[in-house]
């Protein structure tokens, strides 16, 4: 029976909370006190079964109240799997238990005690697969029973605002117990900027609930105080220091390469780059394996102390304390003071030392049993009785009827952060703990994580680590006194019975582990994977020591071989929301300078690389006819635009591009492909000779950034003296296309636009409305057309100006989809759309851009190979009969049921009135007039005819006239 206490004789700092409020638990109203966690409020209200185990649905209850295991996972305000012992309770919270039906108190899914011994070891690998039809049915049931919390598919808090924060302290200290606080003090004394991270709301670590007297501490003024008072005094001393930032309720969950520390607080992710990091994360009570070792009513020493000292809860009516060190007497004293009747302290030591704590317990009349330990617990849904006896579990001698068993049998260091994917801990025989000793440079560890016990030792180690961290100097291994050693009990008290849970999270018993080993899983890694020990919600934090020690015992591996498996980040789960943050890690969305003009004009948009581009303003078929018959304008600002100059510019172009450009006169433009080192066509564009020695290269939208970095990479690699200026962000561009485009532009410029003065594939500089412009007589649409590039700050005004000036034609905007139709009528390919990772320029029909007789250039060797091999497949233009449906982009070309090619782009031609497209076909079908079958997605076949040239204006008369 639990109840609240008003005062406690042994805890001078204890004061009962002033305020109380209520929240709901499975629909019932529960009272909470200020300072409660969700779990402590539930425990105070008498809730004993807080969850059901993963596999067998055994009842589980609070243990350490410190966020270690899954026993206190609950759904809080619809968020699943919340560690209810780690979050403060708030008025009105809705808390629900998980994975039990109909309720946690009475779970009909429980296959508990009776069935466990009947299931063969690794039963899931040995059942349900014969006959074959059984498994899909069995799986449906397994999936129904599996899983803990429910994902909130309604997405109730989906608009939660997550933030990312960055810190760059000199020294980052993780943990604020005595060692952490001493580290902070030492680093502050050395003049450093310090960041202190503490998982709990209050600083102080386990000392907050500890009243051992401080003795022999290097910080003299702390001697004689209780630990509670000592940490309070330390906190008061440093708290206000201007060089210290404290992040409480913050959990450092990972350490990555280069000592990047990641931490979470509420909805925030902290990324911390410190010069040095001190880890003082402490330790938790050791997990002990015995019969029925995972029952509601079995708690750890520190778990009980937290309830009493931090939350004012008398945790039980009658308790038995199992211990191997003075800490158990401390817990017993606090229990006694809280009004719990302590029936016995069972001490594993043959001869407990004579000191105030042991004597104090004796004086209270509490019997002490020496050289004894726990053998088993009895009770169906919670502890009813405990049996004790010798250390190895052979002879049970005594039993007590009680409702609480306290396990205070030593500590296991919180090693995850020190180990994390980097190194595995080793068993330190002298200190009787697992340790990580080989730390990376500028990482330090201090305190209980090293197996230290007394306040003075924790302080000393913390202080030294803090000082070393400030100086980035090495830290020598601290020595240990004999009396600090807490001897580990046997990892399993072999007292018989079937329910020795090594891994309570995954319901793995000792006998299951033994059977796995017998089956051949005799290495810790394979044992873990086969039995799934350590793979549950606590990720081995509870059981890794027990697993390793039992593996050593049961496999015959030595203690150094049977070390736990690699510990992985994160230390505790971290949500996708926190990791994603508010600014998604996606490519930024880019818009052109004319974007809002397009929006106003009612354009539909599509994604083109990082850009949003107008898909079309009117139905694309209509727009296409408008360009063919009148005049259109398209925003092509998204093209890549590089200006290249410098002494080596011609050598560089010759090296990077497959063509020859020495003869390219000023004012002329040439089409070029780009070929990879593997001889594959991956890009195309135009190269314009703007002025003597200055070239302007346009590339496709999608490859803009990639081409720039590729060029810069080669400039650096081969030491070309070339200047690369990326003008894409500062140049807007449009293309004006249509028969009347010359006439229209002539009205706007004062240069001669005639065919003789400004022929096809030429470029000129001019001004339009006083804005300097570059004019290129090129186009993608097959009509007479001009590309106009100009500073993007004039993007919107010039766009509006063009439309205004062109009103009489009329000049209308057209979108990307329309351009795709137009270019397809003209048979122009788009790299990456009509080509893929196997397309070479010969087969793609752009071999006119390749001059193999040139000196060395990128891709030359492979091009030679492709040329020698000859054409095997070819990219061709095709047309369909006018009544045929239009194939989907990407569909297959078949011959006698065999795939022989594919359609890359396919549209209805509004100009011609039949379907057209580009397709890869075998060489023998690439000649004009060849016919082939295209298989539509619905299974229908249509016959296509290969065209010699483009479907529209095959001779290109409209471009050149």
């Amino acid at each position, binding site marked *: 029976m639990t109840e609240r206490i008003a005062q406690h004789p042994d805890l001078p700092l204890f004061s009962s909370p002033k305020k109380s409020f209520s929240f709901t638990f499975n629909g019932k109203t529960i009272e909470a006190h200020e300072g409660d966690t969700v779990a402590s409020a539930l425990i105070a209200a008498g809730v004993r079964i807080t969850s059901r185990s*993963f596999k067998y649905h055994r009842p589980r209850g609070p243990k350490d109240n410190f966020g270690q295991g899954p026993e206190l996972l609950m759904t809080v305000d619809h968020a*699943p799997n919340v560690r209810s012992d780690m979050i403060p309770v708030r008025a009105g919270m809705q808390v629900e238990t998980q*994975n039990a039906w109909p309720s946690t108190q009475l779970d009909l899914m429980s296959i508990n005690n009776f069935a466990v011994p009947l299931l063969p*070891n690794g039963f*899931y*690998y040995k059942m349900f*697969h*014969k006959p*074959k039809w059984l*498994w*899909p049915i069995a*799986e449906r049931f*397994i*999936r129904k029973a599996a899983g*803990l*919390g*429910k*994902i*909130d*598919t309604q*997405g109730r808090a*989906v608009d*939660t605002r997550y933030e990312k924060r960055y810190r760059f302290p000199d020294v980052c200290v993780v943990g604020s117990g005595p060692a952490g606080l001493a580290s902070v003090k030492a680093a502050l004394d050395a003049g450093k900027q310090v960041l202190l991270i503490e998982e709990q709301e209050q600083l102080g670590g386990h000392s907050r609930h500890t009243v051992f007297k401080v003795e022999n501490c290097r910080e003299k003024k702390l001697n004689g105080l209780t630990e509670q008072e000592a940490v309070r005094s330390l906190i008061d001393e440093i708290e206000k220091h201007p060089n210290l930032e404290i992040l409480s309720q913050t959990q450092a969950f990972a350490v*990555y*390469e280069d000592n990047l520390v990641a931490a979470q607080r509420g909805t925030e*992710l902290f990324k911390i780059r410190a010069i040095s990091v001190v880890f003082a994360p402490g330790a938790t009570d050791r997990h002990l394996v015995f019969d029925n070792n995972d029952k509601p009513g079995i708690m750890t020493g520190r778990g009980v102390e937290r309830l009493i000292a931090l939350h004012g809860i008398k945790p039980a009516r009658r308790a038995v304390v199992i211990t191997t060190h003075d800490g158990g007497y401390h817990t017993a004293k606090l229990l006694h003071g809280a009004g719990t009747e302590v029936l016995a302290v069972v001490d594993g030591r043959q001869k407990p030392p004579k000191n105030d704590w042991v004597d104090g317990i004796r004086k209270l009349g509490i019997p002490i049993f020496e050289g004894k330990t726990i053998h088993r617990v009895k009770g169906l849904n919670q502890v009813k009785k405990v049996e004790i006896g010798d250390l190895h579990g052979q002879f049970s001698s005594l039993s007590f009827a009680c409702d609480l068993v306290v396990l205070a049998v030593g500590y296991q260091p919180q090693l995850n952060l020190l180990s994390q*994917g980097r190194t595995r801990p080793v068993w330190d025989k002298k200190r009787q703990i697992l340790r990580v000793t080989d730390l990376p440079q500028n990482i330090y560890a201090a305190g209980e994580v090293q197996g230290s016990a007394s306040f003075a030792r924790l302080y000393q180690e913390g202080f030294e680590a803090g000082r070393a961290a400030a100086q980035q100097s090495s830290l020598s291994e601290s020595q240990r006194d004999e009396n600090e050693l807490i001897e580990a009990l046997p990892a399993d008290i072999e007292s018989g019975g079937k329910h020795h849970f090594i891994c309570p999270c995954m319901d793995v018993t000792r006998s299951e582990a033994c059977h796995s080993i017998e*089956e*051949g899983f005799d*290495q810790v*890694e*394979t044992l873990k*994977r086969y039995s799934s020990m350590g793979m*549950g*919600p606590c990720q081995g934090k509870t059981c890794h020591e027990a697993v390793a020690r039992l593996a050593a015992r049961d496999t015959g591996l030595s203690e150094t071989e049977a070390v736990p498996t690699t510990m*992985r*980040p*994160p230390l505790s789960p*971290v949500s*996708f929301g926190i*990791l*994603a943050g508010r600014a*998604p*890690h996606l490519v930024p*969305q880019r818009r052109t300078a004319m974007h809002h003009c397009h929006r106003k004009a009612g354009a539909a948009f599509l994604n083109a690389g990082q850009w949003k581009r107008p898909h079309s303003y009117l139905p694309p078929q209509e727009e296409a006819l408008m360009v063919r018959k009148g005049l259109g304008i398209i925003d092509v600002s998204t093209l890549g635009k590089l200006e290249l100059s410098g002494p080596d510019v011609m050598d560089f172009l010759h090296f990077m591009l497959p063509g020859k450009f020495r003869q390219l006169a000023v004012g002329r433009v040439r089409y070029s492909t780009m070929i990879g080192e593997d*001889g594959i066509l991956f890009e195309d564009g135009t190269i314009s000779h703007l002025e003597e020695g200055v070239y302007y290269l346009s590339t496709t939208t999608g490859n803009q950034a990639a081409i720039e970095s590729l060029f810069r990479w080669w400039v650096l690699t081969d030491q070309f003296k070339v200047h690369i200026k990326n003008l894409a962000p500062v140049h807007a561009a449009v293309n004006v296309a249509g028969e009347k485009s010359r006439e229209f532009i002539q009205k706007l410029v004062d240069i001669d636009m005639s065919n003789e003065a400004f022929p096809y594939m030429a470029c000129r500089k001019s001004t339009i409305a006083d804005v300097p412009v570059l004019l290129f007589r090129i186009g993608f649409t097959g009509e007479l057309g001009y590309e106009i590039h100009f500073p993007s700050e004039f993007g919107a005004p010039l766009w509006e100006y063009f439309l205004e000036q062109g009103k009489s034609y009329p000049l209308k905007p057209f979108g990307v989809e329309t351009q795709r139709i137009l270019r397809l009528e003209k048979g122009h390919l788009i790299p*990456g*759309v009509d080509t*893929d990772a*196997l397309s070479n320029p010969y087969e793609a029909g752009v071999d006119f851009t390749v001059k193999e007789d040139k000196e060395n250039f990128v891709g030359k060797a492979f091009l030679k190979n*492709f040329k020698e091999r000859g054409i095997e497949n070819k990219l061709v233009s095709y047309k369909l009969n006018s009544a045929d449906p239009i194939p*989907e982009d*990407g569909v*297959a070309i*078949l011959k006698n*049921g065999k*795939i022989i090619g*594919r359609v890359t782009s396919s549209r209805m031609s509004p100009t011609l009135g039949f379907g057209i497209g580009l397709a890869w076909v075998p060489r023998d079908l690439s000649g004009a007039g060849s016919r082939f079958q295209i298989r539509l*997605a619905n*299974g229908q076949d249509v016959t296509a005819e290969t065209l010699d040239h483009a479907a529209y204006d095959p001779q290109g008369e409209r471009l050149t006239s």
Partner: protein
Amino acid sequence: MTKKMWKQHDLKKHYDIVIIGGGAHGLATAYYLSKMGVRDVAVLEAKYIGYGGSGRNTAILRSNYRTEEGIRFYDQSIQLYENLSQELDFNLMFSQQGHFTLGHTEASVSGLTTRAENNKALGVDSYMLDPIEIKKMLPEIDISDHPRYPVLAALYHPPGGIIRHDAVVWGYARGAEQGGVEIHNLTTVGEIRTEKNKIKGVQTNRGFVSCNKLISVVAGWSSDVCAMAGIELPFVTHPLQALVTESYKPWLHHVVVSSNLHIYLSQTDRGELVCGGGIDGYPHYGMRSTLAFLETYAAHVLELFPVLHNVKVQRQWAGLCDMTPDYSPIISPIDEIEGFYVNGGWGTYGFKASPASGYNSAQMLAQGKVPANIAPFSYNRFRENRLVGEKAAASVSN
């Protein structure tokens, strides 16, 4: 008395065939060799069976590849997988729950359409779905135009699914041992010996072992192992990261892959979401995880499923991928050294290939002839510049 799945053996001085690498591929090779009656075989594993990619992958199976070579090969693999639980008498928990590849750009939709049509033509069940149909099967997916790259379509592949990857390793290992093959854990090969361009054997930490045939099946470590024989491979090893979430009530009953967001996820029978992404952009043999992976993955998965914002990552890890220039493996004899074979270059798509890889490798070793299904995956194709076209499909290939 518990039955042992495998035994510890003394290392003999000679075996007919030595397989370097105790992953799913090496063990499958050993298993199928034993079924073909070739029993004088040793599998040498430097760590423990399943240490590498076999234990680190995300266990997704599918055969909806793009090229005829890829489709035929992976279809054979899926067919072997479909009966493997019964054949090995070990429940591999193959859950054929259906596999989505989402397309978010027109170019990727075109590529997915090619795959769908090529699959259909070769008898593999695969077809395109529009966003409304996708939403029916994945109710929590965001098909609005709110995401950076909205969902435009999906390639759906009903036979695709997930499997218990470790079980595949153990099932094959047990089957191979029952067939008389020896598996040697903690046995490191330090040297490959040849004589007159013929394989002699391997020097291990447990002594020299001679053999008639040697095959390297070590995936991410292929370049290192083959370098011992003086063979250079066109492989570059990159890390690939993955994560699992905590366990939740099963909510996602299909494999979901996004080709443009470079992520994939599925939910196991234990309730964990198993998640992965693209390879790390740098060649590396290190297997440490990064925060950047978690952040990017999280941002991308929330684009698809915003309701996952409070779902928590429980564990992250990394494995190694031996990438080839054409995203297709090498399963091939090596002409320079008689009796030396390579099985590698599995990139990010190795686990799903295990049965077909093992089966064809075993045939190649047992009969000395290269079976038709793996003929396209020859070592010499890189000399002849005749690459397989899977790279075109492999923006994210899980």
